Structures are given as structure tokens and as C-alpha cells.
């Protein structure tokens, strides 16, 4: 196994990680600030991808498609918050799970109703397609490099937003003591709608960015949602920093585990069986990681609440 291959796989893990971060950031914000378990987060990811595919198909512009994805998912998020979620803040988590699970079904069948059952076409724009050669002779797709860049930029932006702006102060305050924040005259329900729309918009952006290299289809959000939950549990619920570190850990573990475990098993098993056992174990790797982290730190790496 050459060094070039390992470097390329690390890049792949990073790219997967930062895309997971876009999903997990919104999820962890919503859970941290509002105490809400939002299972429908994956549907907002799907809404972003479908909006991007529709706009890219109509206009041919990828940038417009990204803007549309962000806007459509944020809008869908805001509407969902105002119509459904707002009634659930005082409700027990089980009711929230039930209601947001219903939202998944509504979004999925609604999307099928509008766009049909067959996957949509969304492709990488010409100016981002094809591989580039990195130092060390690694040929790597330009688009994936761009994804890493976008993900890191969003992470920096979110850090700035929560640490340096008035809105960020309100978000962090709302996390700690929502009654006190409301008593100080902050319009808490407007703040919640805003946070929800922000989380939704990030999910939509991730959906559009990833949709260009995957398939834009109904149900595309659910597998990512499960991973995003693993990420925020590892990172500590409510922590943006935790979501970032957790996402990179999950991205790298999943990618590198898929490569190295089968190789490892080949040392002492015959190749066919080794690939099968190795792949089976690789798909468990992130859950093993999660349990190890939880044994070590029951509230996650950066979790504030026990």
C-alpha cells in the first residue's frame, strides 16, 4: 500500500467528514438550543438536493443551484418550525421523535409527488470537474477539494457566528437558560425559528453539494442522518466544536476502516473471506468508535450536559 494511496484516502476521509459536519452542525445546534430531536433533518438535506437539481436543470448554473438549495431548505425549515416544531418544545422527546418522523414521511412522499420516483440529474459544473495533481503526485478530484474548502469555510463562519456576534451570544445563552434569556427581552421564538432555519439551510447546502457526486433521490437523507447523530453523540450534544471534531473522526474512521480492515484480515485469512469479514467489520467501525468514546466520556468529547 503506497503512501500516495494513504494520503488520498485521508483526503477522502476529510472530505466525508466536513460534509457530515454540515449536517451535524445544524442537528447539534437545534438539539442544544431548543432541546429538540429533529429526525426530519435528513429530509431538509433531500430538499436542498432536489431544489439544486431543479434549478440547475432550469438555469444550468451550479452556483444558482447552491443558493436555491440553501434558500429552499432554510425556508422549509422555517415553515416546519413555525407550523409543527413550535408546539413540541414542551413535549417529551418521544412526542418530538414521533412528530419529526411523520415529517420524514410527509417530505418523502411530497417530494415523490412533485418530482416522481426516479433519481434526478445533478452534475458537477465544468469548472470544477476532473482531477488535479497535488504535490506528491496525488491525482485528486478538484470538486472534492472544493467540498473540503466549503466545509472548512462554513465551520469558520459558524465559529465566528457563535463566538463573535450578538446572535451567537443569544444562541449560547438560550442553550444555558432560556427563561432568563426571554426575561431579558430577547424574542425567543424568533431566535428559535432563526436557529432552525440556519440548521436546515446548512443541511440543504450539504445535500446539494453531495448530490452533485451522488444520486439525488427520495430517501437520500436518512443514511446521512444516522451518521450525523453518531457525530453529535461522539462530539457532545450542543457543541459546534464537538460536531466538527466528531465529524472528522467519523469520516476518517469510516473511510480508512473500509480500506485497512480488509487488508489487515488478508494477513491471516484467505482473500475472499478477508474482504467479506473486513467489510462487515468496517461498517461497524464508527459504532465501535462511538461506544469507546461514550465509555471514556459519557457526555461526548465536548458535551456540557451529562
Amino acid at each position, binding site marked *: 500500500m503506497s503512501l500516495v*494511496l494513504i494520503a488520498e484516502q485521508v483526503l477522502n476521509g476529510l472530505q466525508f467528514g466536513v460534509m457530515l459536519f454540515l449536517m451535524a452542525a445544524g442537528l447539534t445546534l437545534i438539539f442544544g438550543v431548543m432541546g429538540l430531536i429533529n429526525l426530519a433533518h435528513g429530509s431538509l438535506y433531500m430538499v436542498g438536493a432536489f431544489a439544486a437539481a431543479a434549478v440547475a436543470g432550469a438555469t444550468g448554473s451550479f452556483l444558482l443551484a447552491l443558493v436555491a438549495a440553501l434558500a429552499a431548505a432554510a425556508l422549509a425549515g422555517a415553515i416546519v418550525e413555525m407550523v409543527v416544531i413550535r408546539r413540541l418544545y414542551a413535549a417529551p422527546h418521544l412526542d418530538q421523535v414521533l412528530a419529526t418522523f411523520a415529517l420524514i414521511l410527509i417530505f418523502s412522499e411530497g417530494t415523490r409527488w412533485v418530482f416522481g420516483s426516479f*433519481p434526478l440529474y445533478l452534475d458537477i459544473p465544468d469548472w470544477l470537474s476532473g482531477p488535479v495533481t497535488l504535490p506528491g503526485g496525488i491525482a485528486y478530484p478538484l*470538486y472534492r477539494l472544493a467540498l473540503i474548502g466549503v466545509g472548512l469555510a462554513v465551520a469558520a463562519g459558524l465559529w465566528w457566528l457563535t463566538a463573535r456576534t450578538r446572535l451567537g451570544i443569544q444562541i449560547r445563552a438560550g442553550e444555558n437558560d432560556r427563561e432568563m434569556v426571554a426575561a431579558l427581552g430577547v424574542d425567543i421564538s424568533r431566535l428559535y425559528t432563526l436557529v432552525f432555519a440556519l440548521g436546515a439551510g446548512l443541511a440543504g447546502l450539504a445535500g446539494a453539494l453531495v448530490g452533485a457526486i*451522488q*444520486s439525488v433521490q*427520495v430517501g*437520500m437523507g436518512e443514511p446521512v442522518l444516522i451518521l450525523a447523530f453518531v457525530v453529535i453523540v461522539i462530539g457532545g450534544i450542543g457543541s459546534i466544536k464537538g460536531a466538527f471534531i466528531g465529524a472528522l473522526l467519523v469520516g476518517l474512521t469510516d*473511510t480508512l476502516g473500509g480500506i485497512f480492515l*480488509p487488508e489487515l484480515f488478508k494477513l491471516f485469512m484467505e482473500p475472499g473471506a478477508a*474482504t467479506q469479514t473486513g467489510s462487515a467489520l468496517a461498517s461497524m467501525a464508527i459504532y465501535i468508535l462511538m461506544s469507546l468514546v461514550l465509555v471514556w466520556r459519557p457526555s461526548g468529547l465536548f458535551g456540557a450536559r451529562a
Partner: protein
Amino acid sequence: MKKTLLATAALILAAGAAMAEVKVGMITTLSGGGAGLGIDVRDGFMLAVKQSGRDDIDVVIEDDQQKPDIAVQLADKMIQSEKVDVLTGIIWSNLAMAVVPAAVAQGKFYLSPNAGPSALAGAGCHPNYFNVAWQNDNLHEAAGAYANTAGHKNTFILAPNYPAGQDALTGFKRFFKGDLAGEIYTQLGQTDYAAEIAQIRASGADSVFFFLPGGMGISFLKQYADSGVGLPVVGPAFSFDQGILQAVGDAALGVVNTSQWSKDIDNPTNKAFVETFQAEYGRLPSLYASQGFDTANLLISALDKAAPSDADAFRAALEAADFSSTRGAFRFGPNHHPIQTIYAREVIKEGDVFTNKIIGVALEDHADAYAAECKM
């Protein structure tokens, strides 16, 4: 007056006896990522039922959500409370393995319009189980045979880690004579193949064989085209069916894939099928639609001869496969799986639409490898 009334009643009774309702339970995937396949099978099946003009076939359709536990529940419900005579519709091999053995053990007939796991073709075969599509290995065996003729010597193979994926790689290796540059099992439902593509690039292969049905294939092909690896690709038709080609776009152009059906197979049944399917549903049919259509026509041909309540006669009628298939000649082997010709097709663009064109025969009159193990 009384006499005519009696006569009418007798007539109705007689008609009722001749036209005993047949209940068909269709369990298929109509929601989620795999819905395109189930919808095509359903639409093909219902088109054939409609064209037969028979109103005594009552089809109960349920969505399995691509989940084995749901499929088992639906099968139980259909057998216990709906009292269906024949079951059909399952797309995925892991679902078929969960449903079929129990259903046929209860004396029901199962006609598979898609999944053909090796376990049901060999030692686990059953007199009441018929596969109208293919045994899972078949299209991959044909891909292996095609890779030989295309001169591939050192190929990299990958498939998802589930029964049909394992059958796929086994099938390919059974016919491919060259060396393997690498062999990978991916996760079922995986959407990112960057890691696998990097391994392909580093392996020194001269070609790639992959089996990744539905959305997985779309993701792989788009990422593969963008990676610039550029080695020739061979695959079964499942990643190049009419439903997903439009979503793959240019990345699929020129790829050779193997299929038992194509819309340009030249026979009157197929021509009429493609035309009427397009008129009815406003899209081109896929191989899944052709399999659904053939399954219904097989069922109708058997119903013309016997009722499912007369199990032996009905089974004999199914075995005869006395219907005109979209694939041309159609016959069953001793294990109730098709013996058929498998073609090599190339992805082309017709106007704005991506579709397939036959470029040759990959395997002629091909039977599956498990028939000898089947004792029934």
C-alpha cells in the same frame, strides 16, 4: 318469468365458476431509494393484466419499503387474511430470502419478477417457486464472458456486501479468465466511492467490473467519471437501466453492460410492449418493467389452463411457460429458472434520452450454475 330468472341465475353461477377470482399478492418496493425498481415491475405487471382484458385477476399491491421485516409481515397478512393464491413482486434478494421459503412451504406459488438468490436456485429450490427474471449470477457471468472477449486481463471487481452482491462477484469470476487486480465488498446503500476509486487507481488494473444497483450505481459512475481513472467499465444492466441512466448522464456513455432484455430486441411482443408501456406511462420501460410484464403474462398463460387451487395442473402450466415473452423464446430449466440469451449492450444517446443498444450476444441459451443441486 320465473324460468328466465332461474336461467339467469344459473348463467351467473356458471360464469362465476369459470371465472373464479384469482388473488395475486404483490409485495414490492414503492418508497425510498429503491422505489424506481418496484414501480417499474408493478407498472409492467399491471400493463400485462390490463392488456389481457381479464377482470378476474385481483392484484393486491403493498409496499415493503425495502425492509425484510416489513416484507415478512406483508406476506403473512396476504396469506392469512387476504388468502392470496400467488405471490410476486419482491425486488431485493435479502427480502426474497425472508419471504419466499415460508410462503412456498405454505403451499402458495411465488413468481419472482426480479430477485434470484443462489440459495433458492440450488439446494433450496422449491416446486412452487418460479423465477421469471434470472438467477442472480447470470448477468454477471455474462459480464465475465464479455470481459474475456473485450480482452481484459487484469480487472478490479466490486459489489455490495449482501446476497446478490456475493452472487455477482461469484458469477463474474466463474466466467472471467483473467486475473483480479482487486476485489472489494462495499456497504449496501453506500453513496460515496472515493475510497474504492482510489484503490482502483492504485491497483494497476486494466478494467473494472462493478455491480451496484440503483442509486449506488449513479453515485459510483459519476464519481468514477470525475476521478479521471478512465479504465473501461463493464457491469450488469442494473446500473444502466432506463430509470437511472438520465440521472447518470454523460458519465455512462459508451459503457458496456449485460442484460437479458433490451428495448431493441427484435420481436413483435417486445415492440408492442415498448410502445404500449410508453403510451400508458409516458416513459421508456426498463428491464424491470419487462420482467414484471413477462411475469404477469406467464401467470395469465397458466391461468388459461388451470386454477391455482389445482396445484399440480397449475404448476405444470407454469413450467410449460406457454406465453410470448419480450425476450423472444422463453423456457424454464429444471430448477424453474430461465434458460436464456444474455446480450451485451452499450449506453448511447438517442436525441436527449440516454438508452441502451445491443452490440452482441454475451452468452447464448445460458442456464444457471445451481440447477444440478436442485432436487425436486
